[in-house]
């Protein structure tokens, strides 16, 4: 699918981004890819926690390039480098009166505000929806929160991993008969980041129709619970509560991961239709299996899947995970190597589709950046702009956008309201 027109889809859209950690930064990263101008706003005393500490100790758990913290560690953490691409970096102390004024000045020239603090943080700063919508009635305020903007738990804190719990996802994730487990991948965060993008497009369309901005109230817990919607319906009618079932599927079998040659290498296989089943028998060179009465239909295969798993494993154990995948797919069987992160960056399919950007980050070196969960034929993706150093764009934004003079900006730095060096305790 060749992209044939070159205008960036969100050119001219200006986003003020107060978001931290993962869900919000992911959403604004996508906006940047599509051409939006994203101004990431942090404070020198409370940087995005993705940046880690101003002066991390030797045992700091964050990931730095080759473990080296460097001169400005807060510009080098893996999470910051990866999630805060495509953004300008500005610092402002929102606790100071002058900081609040400048914040509202920025609000006046932006289309979108994104934040994901605990529920009432912005209100306590006097910068909640009422204040910002008064400053700019066209502003779209995307409020991503753990629990939503209202309700008794509106101020509760969460992480991706606790959302998996409170939204029910952990209750259906785990080995068969075993305890619930979380993903270790803060799974709700990227999901919410991806959805936030669509929610924002909806709000922009509404603004086009009504001339007005609005508050978009997005509860991460609610969104995450939608990932087990069918189980909610089922419980409400039959009283069955879904639980853990490992890699098994409600309908399909065989369904699981199978060990391959090499250390901790696996291939995932999922067989639904009769064609896929017959394809599996061909691929593993056991045509007689297709005649085995135990495996005659989907129900039989589901009931006898342990026996099938053994048969499949004895075949996969002789092959590497990519080889097993290609052989199975050649016979029409849904199969995928269980890739590690280091393998995805070299995968030929992603390579052929131009999924990765090679980024030369001045503070962290060269690496491959994951990009977007979609490709549009006429709206290209902007090439990754490396993550910015803290406060790197203070002058560009305060002078260029707000018209402050160099002297005024110097005075702000003097007062500690802005700057490009974190507070030492940050």
């Amino acid at each position: 699918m060749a992209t044939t027109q070159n205008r960036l889809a969100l050119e001219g859209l200006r986003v003020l981004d107060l978001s931290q950690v993962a869900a919000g930064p992911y959403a604004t990263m996508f906006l940047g890819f599509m051409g939006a101008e994203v101004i990431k706003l942090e404070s020198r005393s409370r940087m995005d926690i993705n940046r880690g500490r101003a002066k991390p100790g030797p045992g700091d758990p964050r990931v730095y390039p080759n473990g080296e913290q460097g001169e400005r560690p807060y510009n080098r953490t893996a999470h910051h480098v990866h999630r805060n691409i495509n953004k300008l970096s500005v610092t402002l102390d929102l606790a100071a009166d002058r900081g609040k004024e400048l914040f509202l000045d920025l609000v006046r020239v932006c289309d979108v505000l994104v934040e994901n603090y605990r529920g009432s943080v912005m209100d306590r700063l006097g910068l909640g929806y009422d204040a910002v919508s008064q400053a700019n009635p066209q502003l779209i305020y995307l409020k991503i929160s753990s629990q939503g903007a209202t309700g008794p738990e509106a101020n509760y804190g969460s992480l991706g991993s606790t959302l998996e719990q409170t939204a029910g996802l952990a209750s259906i994730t785990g080995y068969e008969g075993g305890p619930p487990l979380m993903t270790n991948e803060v799974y709700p965060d990227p999901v919410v980041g991806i959805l936030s993008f669509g929610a924002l497009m909806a709000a922009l369309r509404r603004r086009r129709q009504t001339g007005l901005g609005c508050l978009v109230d997005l509860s991460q817990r609610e969104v995450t619970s939608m990932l087990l919607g069918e189980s909610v319906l089922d419980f409400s009618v039959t009283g069955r509560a879904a639980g853990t079932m490992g890699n098994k599927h409600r309908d399909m079998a065989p369904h699981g991961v199978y060990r391959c040659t090499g250390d901790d290498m696996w291939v995932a296989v999922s067989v639904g239709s009769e064609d896929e089943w017959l394809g599996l028998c061909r691929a593993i060179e056991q045509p007689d299996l297709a005649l085995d009465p135990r495996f005659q239909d989907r129900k039989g295969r589901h009931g006898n899947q342990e026996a099938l798993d053994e048969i499949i494993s004895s075949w996969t154990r002789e092959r590497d995970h990519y080889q097993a995948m290609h052989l199975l797919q050649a016979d029409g069987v849904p199969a995928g190597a269980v890739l590690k992160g280091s393998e995805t960056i070299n995968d030929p399919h992603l390579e052929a589709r131009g999924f990765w950007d090679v980024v030369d980050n001045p503070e962290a070196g060269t690496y491959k950046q994951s990009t977007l969960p979609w490709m549009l034929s006429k709206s290209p993706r902007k090439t990754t702009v490396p993550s910015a150093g803290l406060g790197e764009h203070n002058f560009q934004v305060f002078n260029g956008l707000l018209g402050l003079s160099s002297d005024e900006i110097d005075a702000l730095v003097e007062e500690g309201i802005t700057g490009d060096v974190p507070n030492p305790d940050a």
Partner: protein
Amino acid sequence: MMASNGGVLGDIKVLDLSQGVSGPFCAKFLAGLGAEVIKVEPTGIGDSSRQSEPFLGGPNDVESSALFAYLNTSKMSVTLDLDNPDQALPVRQLAQETDILVESYAPGYLESLGLGYDALSETNPGLIYVSVTPFGQTGPYRDYKGADIVAQAIGALMYTIGLPDREPLKVGGESVLYTIGISAFSAAMLALHVRDAEGFGQHVDVSAMEVMTVAQIHSSINDQFGHTPVRRPTNLVRAKDGWVSPGLESGVQQGTWPKVCELMGVPEFADDPRFTTQEGRRTNQQDLLKVIGDWAATKPKEEIYHTLQALRTITGYVATVEDLLVAKQLVDRQFFQTLADPVHGEVIHPGAPFRMADEEWQLLPPPRLGDHNQEILSGRLGYSSEEIAKVSKNGEA
């Protein structure tokens, strides 16, 4: 005719040719925002999700799947077999009046029927054509087949999930297929934004593999920075009636730990150097979990959740589906909605994924197979009753 609630997409017509989970979930969201969605299903059997567990009634009933019911709220159903040339014609006609088409067939299949993007956009240049497939429209794996577990595997999400001494574990249920549908929704909204501004439609290519490679938020970057993510032990501890995570490893203020010790009745741990800092609690997590576990085992999980959250920790409790429906926060926000289903009675659905000013989220019961054949084929396209009888509800063409 289904009532439109106006809404942000009140002027938008969607043709949902997709089957299974991801494509239909995308179209469900478009319907939620007020779009009119016509779902085209194969005659007789309908969308493949109609054959999927869990069933609200008998398993051999195409109106019984909870999965289908969840995925297809607020849509109309028309039965047509695309590979029958007579029946592909009405699909082509409908596509002329369509703003957003959603499909999930193998790349090239619809093209072979004259229903590809190039053919349809020639006479409907504003068409947004959303293809949701396992590997996308191009590249060496484009013809490969996919599934929820395959996407989790190939996108490197799965490798780090599960316990260190066990096999990689999938995220439960159909959750990854839903995520792929959400990506398609956001991409469709993006393409609509472009069309509103510029006037042209385009082809949207959503690859499950890429969605997962994006959703896998740590592995690709950490690996490149020299830190290989691996499967880790769990930090859940057993409560009296389930599981909690005490949430003391990050995001907790200095004075919190002594308060937690006080609460647990173990003040002697307040200045135990293993636990006094976040880093310490992370490093000595297993010891910490043991201390907390002794206390937690006697308390209900939700009590622990509320008590520790009040101390500004980031505590979680594992809600089951049953717990979700009575969770105070979700009840207070009226997140769940009860729909009256003609067959199954009152069915509870998750509601709006986000709230926007006073916009309502359209949530109407899913259609029965072919419910709207008459209305669409006769009312809108002018087919005679004999012609429609051929594609009647039960599909005895």
